[in-house]
């Protein structure tokens, strides 16, 4: 062992090699952790969204009476979170496919409906903003079309999980669908950057005189929606785990305790 001291970092490597990294990913541990963390994230979401909405709707001042632009405090964070959740969902689904880890696939399965909700919210808020500004509820803007495509990919993943009787086969197909849709995320970001460049700044930015309040409000709403996405996914993973863990000792023990 004395020889180990001569090699820098050898003891740390030995410790890492000996510890059981998969112990934390045991189903009952993940289930217990998800049950504990979900209310905490929900509380963080409520707090952040409360602050964000107050600052965005009452503190951030506009250049004129263009109150309609306050919808960006809902639209932009919803779009951010829908894109982010898609990346996270694909990462879980792809790792589940690669290492044949059922829990990873279940995580992807739990994220999809919340991602679809945020994608739908981003589209709805854009429709509500589009009618008074451009006189049309819908127009084939590249960003909107990318968001619509993202919603379709989410719905495809949900439909696969709901429509197939074999969950493991559904997991593998879902991984394939989500990986093939991943291209939408960089494309959406690129189209947003292109539109902002065309207008010399983002649409919302041009309309607000107090940029500091606007940025804080936007950040708070983004964090709030992100925390909500985590809380909701954690609540759903508990349901998915209970459904798939039917007949297992830990699931039976949990049901007995309820």
């Amino acid at each position: 062992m004395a020889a180990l001291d001569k090699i820098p970092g050898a003891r740390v490597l030995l410790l890492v090699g000996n510890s059981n990294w998969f112990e934390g990913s045991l189903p009952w541990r993940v289930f217990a952790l998800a049950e504990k963390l979900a209310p905490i994230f929900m509380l963080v979401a409520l707090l952040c969204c409360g602050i964000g909405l107050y600052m965005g709707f009452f503190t951030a001042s506009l250049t004129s009476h263009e109150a309609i632009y306050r919808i960006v405090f809902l639209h932009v964070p919803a779009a951010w979170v829908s894109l982010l959740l898609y990346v996270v969902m694909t990462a879980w689904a792809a790792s589940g496919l690669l290492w044949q880890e059922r829990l990873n696939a279940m995580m992807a399965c739990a994220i999809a409906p919340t991602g679809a909700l945020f994608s739908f919210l981003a589209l709805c808020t854009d429709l509500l903003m589009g009618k008074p500004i451009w006189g049309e509820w819908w127009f084939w803007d590249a960003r909107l079309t990318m968001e619509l495509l993202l919603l379709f990919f989410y719905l495809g993943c949900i439909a696969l999980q709901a429509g197939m009787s074999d969950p493991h086969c559904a997991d593998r197909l879902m991984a394939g669908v989500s990986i093939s849709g991943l291209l939408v995320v960089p494309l959406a970001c690129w189209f947003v950057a292109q539109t902002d460049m065309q207008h010399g700044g983002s649409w919302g930015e041009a309309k607000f005189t107090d940029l500091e309040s606007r940025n804080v409000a936007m950040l708070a709403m983004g964090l709030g929606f992100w925390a909500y996405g985590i809380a909701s996914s954690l609540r759903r993973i508990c349901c998915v785990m209970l459904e798939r863990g039917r007949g297992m000792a830990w699931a039976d023990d949990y049901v007995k305790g309820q």
Partner: protein
Amino acid sequence: MLWYNHSDLPLNVGGDYALYVWGAVVVVVVLVAAEQVLLTIRRNSILEYLGGSR
């Protein structure tokens, strides 16, 4: 590059658009609340089913 050129559109803003703004808030709150209610119903029905099938 972009399929729709915003600069060609009349920027019809101004006036009172509170209905649209608060409408967006209501849409967000209602959908989020609906998701949570559905999750609670799903969890309770799973527990009921597992409790009954034991």
